[in-house]
């Protein structure tokens, strides 16, 4: 469903050129949930933005659902892949009601039955018509993230890109959102690509994980091996070990 081959993404040019992503390749099968982990600046979000079509690539190819994505995406291409961002405070327009936030993408794609689609999308993320005419500041952070997910699902995408979808949320809300994402992913047979620096979260959501460092994938491994602590690359082991409990236990 997702085929990334030799993708390099760079910023600046000449002597100031920085390769944020360097010759990265991986494939994600239909219905699979794949995770990208790494620290800030490793290029994971940049890569996700490139797959969403929000970022140009310097070289390499991105194919989604068997089609090669060029520099210009068609309206159908854009509908195929939708993204949920980290901060639901920043990703929803504060001057638009929930209704407008959800109807705008429908208008752009020229879809009909707007009313019915909005009600259905709200229901799918566990919200109701009572929230439809509220502004983002009138609902909680968790509810905002549900709206952001509804905005993605309303396009009936085949691929869902998740950029740290719960790192701005409380633990109890994180659990609700992760459960929601897994449920819709399963029900709709979505292919999901998730970026996070939180290993337990990504292990919960994904079946395979790629570890990135300085723009490169250093290791790809199935989540069972990660759970058993069987990582080959020293950096993956470092990430596993730097979970706070172990470090502090050593310090005390």
């Amino acid at each position, binding site marked *: 469903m997702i085929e990334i081959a030799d993708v390099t993404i760079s910023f600046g040019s000449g002597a100031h050129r920085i390769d944020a992503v360097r010759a990265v390749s991986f494939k994600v099968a239909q219905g699979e949930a794949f995770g990208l982990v790494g620290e800030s600046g490793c290029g994971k979000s940049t890569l996700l933005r490139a797959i969403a079509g929000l970022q140009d690539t310097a070289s390499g190819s991105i194919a989604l659902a068997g089609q090669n994505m060029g520099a210009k995406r068609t309206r159908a291409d854009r509908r195929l892949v939708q993204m949920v961002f980290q901060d639901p405070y920043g990703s929803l327009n504060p001057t638009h009601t929930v209704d407008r936030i959800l109807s705008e993408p429908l208008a752009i794609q020229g879809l009909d039955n707007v009313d019915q689609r909005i009600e259905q999308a709200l229901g799918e993320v566990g919200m109701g018509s009572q929230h439809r005419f509220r502004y983002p500041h009138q609902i909680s952070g968790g509810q905002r993230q549900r709206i952001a997910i509804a905005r993605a699902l309303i396009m009936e995408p085949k691929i869902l890109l998740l950029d740290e979808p719960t790192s701005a949320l409380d633990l109890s809300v994180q*659990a609700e959102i992760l459960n929601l994402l897994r449920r819709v992913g399963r029900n709709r047979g979505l292919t999901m690509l998730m970026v996070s620096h939180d290993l337990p979260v990504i292990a*919960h959501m994904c079946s395979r994980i790629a570890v990135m460092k300085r723009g490169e994938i250093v290791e790809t491994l199935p989540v069972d091996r990660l759970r058993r602590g069987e990582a080959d690359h020293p950096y993956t082991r*470092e*990430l596993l070990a730097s979970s706070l409990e172990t470090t502090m236990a050593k310090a005390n």
Partner: protein
Amino acid sequence: MTETPLLQVEDLRVSYQGRVGPVPAVRGISFTLGRERLGIVGESGSGKSTIGRAILGLLPRNATVAARRLRLHDTDLLHASERALRDIRGRRISMVLQDPKFSLNPVMTVGHQIAESYRVHRRASATEARRKTLEMLEAVRIDNPERVYDLYPHEVSGGMGQRVMIAMMLIPEPELLIADEPTSALDVTVQAQLLVLINELIARRGMGLILISHNLNLVASFCDRVVVMYAGRVMETCRAAELDRAQHPYTRGLLACRPLIDRAQPELPQLARDPSWLDGPVAA
């Protein structure tokens, strides 16, 4: 823990004046702090940050603070004048906030800011302040203090910015450090290094620490005691090492809804909030 507590908080209440009346944020919190590491955990809106600010008298004008007792040693913080408070802030109690990007002055070099924090509280010449600052930068493990002294905040990384912040807060040698989500804006590997550093510095100086965080793992592994807050009230207080065996259903619920790295769960348990947590009796 020592015989005379460093900080005594008894029945602290804070409410914010809202459009339709006062909104209570902290509702009758009591705890004492010795020369130890106390963690305050809770979710957004539980009032944990308000406590830190109330201790320092840094709440906005629309907040009303009341308490039976709010004392630092023998100083009454509640009735202290603004002038007296200004002397306490920084010198006796200091605070590290979440994001160094917003808490450092962007138009002043980091060395200058740390030196200023020293000179405000201690009589010292500029040369002495500079020397002290370089020492402090070294203490927070900045490799090349001379170079970093002249950098502006935008020229340092998040982790280094937070080290600078810690240096600035510790240089007047306060008795109590309040750290409000000090590492949440940083990468996991950097988080751990910083906490180890804070730990060493406060242990060496015999300081008290209040660590405010939403991160249960962090607080459990770093602190001596933990206060669990919900809706402005203390749900329970327990030894950090025994947090796994916490009694209160709220704490248990929070612990249960974390995803685990070592085993797969089909569905994460969700926290069912009990209305009695808002007003019911609280366990000792």
